[in-house]
Each structure stands twice: as C-alpha cells, then as structure tokens.
C-alpha cells in the first residue's frame, strides 16, 4: 500500500467531508487568525505615523505588506494538534488511532491540509479586503516567488513536527495549557509575530537566528517580500531543512517513549 497514492487521497476525501460540516466554527477561527496580525499592524502603523512615516526602514506600506503576508503564511502553516492532544489522551479517543496500521501523524497532516484547502477559500477574500484597507507595497521578484514555494512547504513541515512533538507532552501531563502558552509566547517574539525581527533588539535577533522559530514563519514572509539576498535565501532553506530533520528526530524519540507511557482511560 503506497502512502501517498492510496492512503492520503482517502484521508483527504473523508476529512473534507467531515470538516465541511463545521462551517461556522471555521469562520470563527478565521476571525481569531486575522485579528492578531491586524492589531500589531495597527500598533506599528501608529508608531510609524508618530515617527514621521518610517521606523527602522519600514514605511506604513511595508508594515502592511509584512503583516498581511504574515497572516497568510501563518494560516498556511499553523496547526492545532497541541490543543487536541490533551483531549485525545484524556478521553481515550487516541486508542483507536493507535490500533490502525498507520502512524497517527499522517491522519493529522491530511486533516490539516484538508482544513487549509477549505479555509483558503475564506482567507483569500479577507486578504483582498486587508490589501484594500491597508494598501501594502512590496517588490515581488520571480526567483523569490519560486523559492517561496519550497520555503513554505519546509515551514509547514517544521512547524508540524515541532508542534506535534510538543503536543506529545500530553502523554505525561495534563497541564499542556501552560506549555502551549510558553511556546506561543516565545513564538510571538522570535518568529516575527509581534514585530518584524529586524525591529527587535540585537540580542533577540541573535537568539532568534540560532533558534528554529524565525524559519517557521518570518523567513518565508521576508523571502516573498523580496527582503532577502540569494545567499540569505539558501541559508534559510538549509536552516529550515536542518531544523525539520532535528524536529523529526525529536518527534520519533518522544513518540516511542510516549506510546509506552500511554495507557488508555479506563484500562
């Protein structure tokens, strides 16, 4: 049985059918997705205005381009496994998944992509609306557009592996809320969500550079907006690949131990 040819198409079809029932929930998630970048965009626009139109090389139009692109890249790469895993473990819903002759991560990847396919239909008009409301400006280059595609795929995989490994913490503790919160707090500053990384203090930028976080979202964003040179692009892609492999290794180690620690509720 080939994974890509036989398993994934079936998972996609069922997932799309299942998720199509939750249209209202999708719109609500969408609002949550849009509101945070818009809030930070407005904050920085206000700062730019009081500083005479420019902050650290960013004009209002640059900020708009950054945060709108950020929203789209974040939408395409985000996962919700860490919020789901605790429920899965606590309720015992994980047991049937473990019995299947398929690693549960494949099901999650398929669900995630199916969800993205459905919700992108909603994200596109919202993006158009934001472009109309905030008039961004960016210089798109063909080579950067081409390099953006692999960087986006790698960003998706990197985020998926790291967040899935983190979600496995639910095997040992029920306090995953606090762990998730720490993760998102770090991500806020190191992944360029609160502000473009170049506006951060130097020491934060250094920490970010050696961490996996900027490669999850900020790097594809900067690449698409034409802020990076050839060398920086290659470097970023290599960093993404290395971190993805490391995350995958971590994931498989944690997974092996976690499954051993897991005993279903009621057993």
């Amino acid at each position, binding site marked *: 049985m080939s994974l890509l040819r036989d398993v994934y198409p079936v998972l996609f079809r069922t997932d799309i059918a299942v998720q199509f029932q939750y249209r*209202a*929930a999708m719109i*609500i998630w969408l*609002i*949550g997705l849009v*509101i*945070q970048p*818009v*809030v930070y965009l*407005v*904050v*920085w626009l*206000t*700062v730019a205005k*009081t*500083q005479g139109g420019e*902050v*650290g090389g960013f004009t209002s139009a640059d900020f708009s381009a950054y945060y709108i692109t950020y929203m789209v890249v974040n939408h395409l790469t985000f996962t919700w496994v860490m919020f789901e895993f605790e429920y899965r473990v606590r309720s015992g819903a994980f047991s049937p998944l473990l019995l299947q002759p398929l690693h549960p991560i494949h099901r999650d990847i398929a669900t995630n992509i199916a969800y993205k396919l459905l919700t992108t239909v909603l994200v596109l008009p919202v993006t158009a609306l934001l472009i109309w*409301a905030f008039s961004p400006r960016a210089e798109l280059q063909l080579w950067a557009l081409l390099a953006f595609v692999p960087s986006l795929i790698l960003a998706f995989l990197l985020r998926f592996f790291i967040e899935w490994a983190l979600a496995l913490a639910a095997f040992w503790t029920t*306090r995953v*809320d*606090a762990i998730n*919160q*720490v993760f998102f*707090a770090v991500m*806020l*500053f190191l992944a360029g969500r*609160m*502000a473009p990384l170049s*506006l*951060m*203090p130097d020491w934060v930028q250094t920490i970010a550079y050696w961490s996996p976080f900027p490669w999850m979202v900020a790097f594809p964003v900067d690449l698409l907006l034409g802020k990076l040179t050839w060398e920086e692009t290659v470097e970023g892609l290599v960093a993404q690949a290395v971190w993805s492999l490391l995350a995958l290794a971590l994931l498989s180690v944690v997974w092996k131990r976690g499954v051993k620690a897991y005993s279903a509720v009621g057993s």
Partner: protein
Amino acid sequence: MNALRLLWVFFRIGLMNELAYRANFYVQFFQGLLRLGVALASLAVVFDHADDLNGWQPAELVALLGVFFLMSGVIGTLIQPSMQRFMEDVRQGTLDFVLTKPEDAQILVSISEVRVWRLVDVIQGVIVLLIALWQIGGDTGWREAGAFALTLCCGTAIVYSFWLMLATLSFWFVRVENILVIFQSLYDAGRWPIGIYPRWLRMGLTFVVPIAFAVTVPSEALVGRLTGATLMGAVGLALAMLLAARLLWRWGVKNYSGASA
C-alpha cells in the same frame, strides 16, 4: 443585598472546590505572570522605537495594561464561567433546577460558577496599575479615582450584559459558544488604546463588541483624559444594556420549555 449574600455563598463553594486542586493556583499564577511579561515586553519593543503611542505615554499604557488584566480577571473569575455553565445547562436541560429555586434566576445563573484562582489576574492587574500610577506621578486625584471607579463599574456592567444577552440567545439557538470565542479573540485587541485602530475597527470594538468601554474608557478616566461626553455615554450605555439584557432574559425564560419538552 440578597444578591451579595448569594455571591458570597457561591464564592465559598468555588473556593472549596478549587482548594482541592491547589496546584492549579501555581499554574494560574505562572500563566498570569507569563501573560503579563509578554504584554510588558511587547510594550518595551514598541517604545524602543517610539516615545508615545497616539499620545499615550509608556507609563499610561502600562496603566491601561493593568486595567486590561483587572477586567480579564473579573470576566474570567465570574462572568465567563457562569455564562458557559448557563449555556451548558440550557443544552442539557439542567436549567430547570435553577428556574425552580425561590430566587431570581438571572442572579443565580450570573454567579453560578466562581473560578477563584482567576482572581490572580485581578491582583496582578491592580499591582501593575499601582506601579504605573506611581510612575506617572501625583496627578491622580480623587476626581480621577472616582471617575475610574465609576467607568470601571460601567465597563463591567456592559461586558456582563453583553455576555448575558449572547448566552440568553442559547434559549433559541443551541450553539452560541462560537460567538463567545469571537469575543475572546477580539478582547485581546483591548490591550491597546482603542483610539489607534482605524474607524471601522474602532466602531466594532465600541458598539458591536463593547471592549472600548471595558478597558480604554476606565484607563482614560485614570490618566485624566476622559471627556464628560464619554463618561455620560458609558453610564448611559451601561444602564441601557443592563435593561436590554434583563428584558431579553425575561422573554427568553418565558419561551423556555426545557430541553426535552
């Protein structure tokens, strides 16, 4: 006064329930500190590049942050858990037990669940607020303090009425929690003064989801930026929304016929 006595009873029940899970206190404390640290760090990054934000000085924005946490704590301790429980009761039919009690049912559902540990947010908010006021200096007199207390009460009343009205809708529509998730994600926008947002968003945050009155207006009162018109508006809106929520509630209860009937 009866309502206060009931609130005290439910508070004690909540406390006794939570005392069984004392580790929750430390987790809550840690999460509160983390939220606060993130918020303060964000301010630090912003003020690394600017001296003021739309006329708000750094210390004034820290005060606003204190109000934000204070209000989050009030919502998280009492309003949100009680309303969620109420909606769950409607769905499961257990609301019948509340309605048959010899006490005003609106009061009962509004204080039915107290998450005591979330008071940590209130305390943290007050501490941040006091530090910010000390930083701002001696400008805060009795006038500002009085206006602050008044607008804070109005803000709480507005947010409470808003939640109650949405929750009351569950008499007709079973799934309204989704709308409350929207409130949660929009509430975060209140960490910044409403004045910075573009008009359409400001209108939404003032009248559709009344966050402006919950956080920005009390903060304005505290730092002496409040205009008489805004004060009157806050009081008027609070009274109007309390009344509207009451009417909607009574209409809803009249139409309610139990989950299985």
